[in-house]
């Protein structure tokens, strides 16, 4: 609502500024009206529950959702909770394995699918299918693929005389097996985002590079990657946040009786156990806030670091 730079003699000033501020005000009003639905949703479904969770983290819950004030008890318990420490370690291991793998593979797939090849639409659809498949179905099928005795993966390995592994029941493999499924599920989503980022790179750069005699790999490293960094930054932030919140795959693929529970349970898995299986919603809220703080810190660090490597045009 900047001024139009009109300078009028005094008798008109009042009229024009009045018109200008009316225009400004009505635009301002419409703007807020347009974002109101989204903002109300954000307030009601995200902000308010976060405030509630913060409040509940200071309470103790009894049977049938009755609760009482408990001060800092939950947080005192939190710093001594060994299971939570293990869960955090599992979560960080998961994040460190998942995020780079997912992003690198998605960039490669997106680059490959950014060319005019035959059947492009089919390839893109195939890669996107895991994204629209129900997580429960994905977990069930992959669980059978990973089955130690009867699973397809071990069967295929046996054809190459490779020893069968207990993918979901061996501490060496359990978390990695889950990461593989998660990466497989995520490529489609990230691929779409990277494709739009790639298509935002002007082809004139590539033409100029071709004239200078650059080959495909050089073009990739010198043109594509640097100009893709804003998209990479976005996907990294989103992926990190999502990865720290991993729950459903682990919950569905590792049974509650499995020995691997301690080796794979994530912070949110523990949150779920405390909140809904042990009915300890006060403590669970404290765990939730704990995770929130960690994710906020990591995101803040990323925001600070972006100046160093993200190339904005």
């Amino acid at each position, binding site marked *: 609502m900047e001024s139009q730079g009109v300078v009028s003699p005094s008798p008109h000033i009042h009229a024009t500024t009045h018109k200008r501020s009316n225009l400004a005000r009505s635009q301002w009003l*419409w703007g807020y*009206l*347009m974002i*109101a*639905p*989204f903002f*109300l*949703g954000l307030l*009601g479904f995200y902000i308010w529950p976060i405030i509630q969770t913060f409040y509940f983290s200071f309470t103790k819950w009894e*049977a*049938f*959702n*009755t609760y009482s004030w408990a001060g800092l008890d939950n947080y005192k318990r939190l710093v001594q909770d060994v299971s939570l420490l293990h869960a955090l370690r599992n979560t960080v291991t998961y994040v460190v394995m998942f995020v780079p793998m997912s992003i690198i593979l998605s960039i490669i797939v997106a680059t490959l699918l950014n060319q005019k090849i035959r059947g492009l639409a089919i390839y893109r659809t195939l890669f996107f299918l895991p994204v629209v498949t129900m997580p429960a179905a994905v977990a069930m099928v992959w*669980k059978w693929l*990973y*089955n*130690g*005795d*009867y*699973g397809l993966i071990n069967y295929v390995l046996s054809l190459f005389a490779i020893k069968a592994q*207990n993918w*979901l*029941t*061996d501490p060496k493999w359990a978390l990695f097996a889950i990461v593989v499924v998660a990466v497989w599920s995520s490529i489609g989503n990230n691929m779409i985002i990277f494709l739009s980022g790639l298509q935002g790179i002007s082809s004139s750069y590539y033409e100029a590079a071709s004239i200078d005699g650059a080959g495909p790999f050089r073009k990739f490293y010198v043109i594509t990657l640097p100009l893709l960094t804003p998209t990479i930054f976005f996907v990294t932030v989103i992926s990190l946040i999502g990865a720290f919140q991993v729950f459903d795959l682990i919950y569905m693929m590792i*049974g*509650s*009786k*499995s*020995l*691997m*529970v301690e080796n794979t349970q994530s912070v949110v898995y523990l949150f779920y156990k405390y909140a*809904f*299986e*042990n*009915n300890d919603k006060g403590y669970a809220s404290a765990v939730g806030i704990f995770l929130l703080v960690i994710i906020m810190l990591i995101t803040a660090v990323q925001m600070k670091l972006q100046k160093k490597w993200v190339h904005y045009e």
Partner: protein
Amino acid sequence: MKKMLISMLAITTVIAAAGCSSSPNETAPAQGQGNATSTETVELSFSSWGGSAYKETNDLLIQAFTAKHPNIKIKIEDTPNKQYWQKMEAAASGENLPDVFWMNGPRFASYAANGMLQPLDDLIKQDKVDLNNYPESLVKLYNYNGKQYAIPKDFDTIGVWYNKALFDAKGVPYPDGSWNWDQFVDTAKKLTDPAKGVWGVAAALDSQGGYYNTIYQSGGSVISDDKKKSGYDSPEGIAGIKFWTDLINVHKVSPTLAQMTDTEPLDMFQSGKVAMLWEGSWNATTFAKNDYLKDKVDVAPLPKNKQQSVVIHGLGYAMSAKSQHPKEAWELLKFLGSKEAMDIHAKTGVAIPAYNGTQDTWVKSFPNMKLQIFIDEVKYAKPYPVSKYTSKWSSLEPEILNKAWAGQVSAKEAAKQLAAKMNEALAAEK
């Protein structure tokens, strides 16, 4: 004008979305959307976890009930057992429990003590429901502080289901129930064939089907009578656990815990990978309908140790204390506890009905299986261990015992750990 229209559209969309998205609780529509006219059609919500096994039974029950009460509609909500109690818990705190629902021993006390269930004594007296028609132990299970809160639905005991074809392949005679632990292990050894990928038994990490029974058989108990002390760390408790861990780690007649985590013991039994499985009477329908098993399966009584014993449990029907239609809900409850409803259970074979005298029909429902053993076992049966907040310690059982199953700690070690945690939980119960 156009802007006005667009923003109105946007706001209505958000409000509509907000309204639609916030009812994951399916019991909501049933409660007193009470067409409050006088000969109202009342809709009652009825919750169970019976699953597909109960489809026929539930249909017949509803048919029979609606024939007598045409103005009452029943809405069945079936939830898998794993999520049933979380759902009920949420419903209870939202004062939104179904009108009538399945109740079990472990959860009963917490619901009754917190006023979630309607006491039934007056209604029972007024309509002359005779509680002598049900086994006394079951009636007592659903009595809290002298008030009756549920009517028994069924009871179940545990047997050794076995695969006759696998017995025949090894020339082993079928068990007649006169066996003890050593003879059971021997039989399992004869049936185990690693070359064929077949084991004698699946030593599942299972309380009701497994170690609760072996603890009783050793002369111990899981919880003391006064509900204050755990029985896991007693020598008898340890023996009960050791029976199972030995099957896996010493006698090697069972798949490992890792293998049973990848593939459910029930699936292993139903595909001929294990010859025997300690499981409940409620599996009769599932096994009888299983294409592979139906002509091969039979069942025998549990082997004995110091004594013969088996854990008995029974579900009950309870009524919400806050039902919007208490009169109609009671009619449904009364019907479900009646001989007619019990006969339907018996005929469809889903569970051993609690009503005295109706069990014969159940036994005859699948004549190729010796279902009578489940009834015979009642005479030496011991109650399913419960306390006021049972799940606080029972949920720890698989978490702590699994290390013993995997052979990482001894049965004694795991049992002692579990007892310590269980005693903590019991001490916290008020």
